[in-house]
């Protein structure tokens, strides 16, 4: 099973996770820029974070044989803090970079005027930089947030096929589907969506335009939820090719629209050959500075 996790916050994860992910078949991922749990108070802490996403974290992932991509944006939560609003001015520098495969996460958290302003501006940047957009949907009042999201996408002129609306559930999936956007599902241990509910959605509406991610971060989450969803799909009667489509070819197709992928889309599936779970990339492991 070759896996491309289209949404995972590796900055918050350990090297054990990288090893386990590689052993489970993860060969590529996208780390969206988001909130770090502790609110930031200045533009400088954003730029250091963005630098890490296109620098250190990419290097760290490579040590484990995983191609790291990212998305860059001012996230909706912090768009509400006037001290952070100037982040919008530094985004173009980062949106020009290799491996930056979308503008994101953008969208709504509490549906404020400030959030909408930042969201609209960043959809404009996606159009300008010819990048897809990754849209976060709110945890609270998700249905209304998703509706307003889709209105703003239409107004932006960004093609629906260039937009993934993420963290969907049974209540929000159909309106996103009808709008022609890509549908992102975050498989969590016990909240947003689980692998069996995911399988039921796939059985109902098919595999088209679906991205399945672990969205693992600093909260209770599981970086292997992509692999577990693949296993649940097989159990439910989906073919290995179906799993490959959802977990590899779909993210390649969506993020490939950026022209910025750093992974070989035709990467052979070698994860089922019993590769050593503890093996590291090219014999190197990554520790705190020391090479061994």
């Amino acid at each position, binding site marked *: 099973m070759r896996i491309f996790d289209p949404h995972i916050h590796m900055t918050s994860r350990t090297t054990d996770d990288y090893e386990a992910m590689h052993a489970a078949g993860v060969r590529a991922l996208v780390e969206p820029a988001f909130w770090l749990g502790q609110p930031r108070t200045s533009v400088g802490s954003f730029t250091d974070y963005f630098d890490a996403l296109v*620098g250190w974290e990419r290097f760290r992932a490579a040590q484990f044989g995983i191609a790291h991509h990212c998305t860059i944006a001012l996230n909706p939560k912090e768009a509400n803090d006037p001290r952070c609003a100037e982040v919008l001015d530094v985004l173009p520098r980062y949106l*020009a970079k*290799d491996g930056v495969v979308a503008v994101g996460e953008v969208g709504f958290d509490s549906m404020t005027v400030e959030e909408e302003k930042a969201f609209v501006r960043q959809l404009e940047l996606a159009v300008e930089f010819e990048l897809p957009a990754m849209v976060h949907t709110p945890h609270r009042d998700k249905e209304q947030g998703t509706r307003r999201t889709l209105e703003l996408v239409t107004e932006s002129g960004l093609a629906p096929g260039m937009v993934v609306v993420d963290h969907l559930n049974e209540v929000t999936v159909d309106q996103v589907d009808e709008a022609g956007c890509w549908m992102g599902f975050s498989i969590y241990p016990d909240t947003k969506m689980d692998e069996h509910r995911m399988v039921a959605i796939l059985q109902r509406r098919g595999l088209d335009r679906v991205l399945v991610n672990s969205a693992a971060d600093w909260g209770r989450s599981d970086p292997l939820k992509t692999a577990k969803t693949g296993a649940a799909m097989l159990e439910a009667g989906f073919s290995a090719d179906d799993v490959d489509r959802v977990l590899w070819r779909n993210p390649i197709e969506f993020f490939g629209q950026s022209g910025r992928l750093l992974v070989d889309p035709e990467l052979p599936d070698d994860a089922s050959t019993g590769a050593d779970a503890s093996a590291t990339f090219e014999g190197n492991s990554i520790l705190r*500075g020391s090479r061994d």
Partner: protein
Amino acid sequence: MTEIEPLADHDTIRHALDASAQAQLEALTAEVADDPSRLGRAFPAAARRTGRGPLPGVDGVLLEDAVRVRLVQVAASSLDPDALLAELREVYRYGDSDEKRAVLHALSGAPEEVDGSDLLLDALRTNDTRLVAAAMGPHSDRLDDDSWRQGVLKCLFTGVPVASVTALARRADRELAEMVQRYQREREAAGRDVPLDVQVVLDACATSPEQPQHEQKDL
């Protein structure tokens, strides 16, 4: 106005590119020649517009590095050393790791008047082995002895082959030997392997022309 030595000659780079990538290279080059302040705009897109990977015919050089250094070379031809350095600092500050590495390679081909040692020190503070290796290239002759020795030790520590350290045979000295011996003792005390490069550095220290000078100083 400032001459930068390229990583590979123009023909070698062109031969590694197909027709459309060649056209992209020409466009990027023309853009930077026309306005050297466009370097920061041309840099991020350079690899995806031309190519990446090992450059045929030049050992150990990546195509994307050669292209970016070529762009620096073109921009430098109409910038004085100070203006070039200011431009390179800006590109480095906002560069991803590949862009930063290319700036370090460009510095390696820079003339005497260009001193980008502050960028080398930044690179040596990272644990990104590609940056550490590039920082210890020819431009590392601008580093003071303390920083240079720490750079060599960092190479040993992070597994960067010391073969990539410029002027090891000339600059290795007794103080470096002592630092490396302490590192060796620490490894042995812990029952860990000692990297083979440790002996390479110690041998360089033993035969270096720097050795007598430092002994004199210490007296």
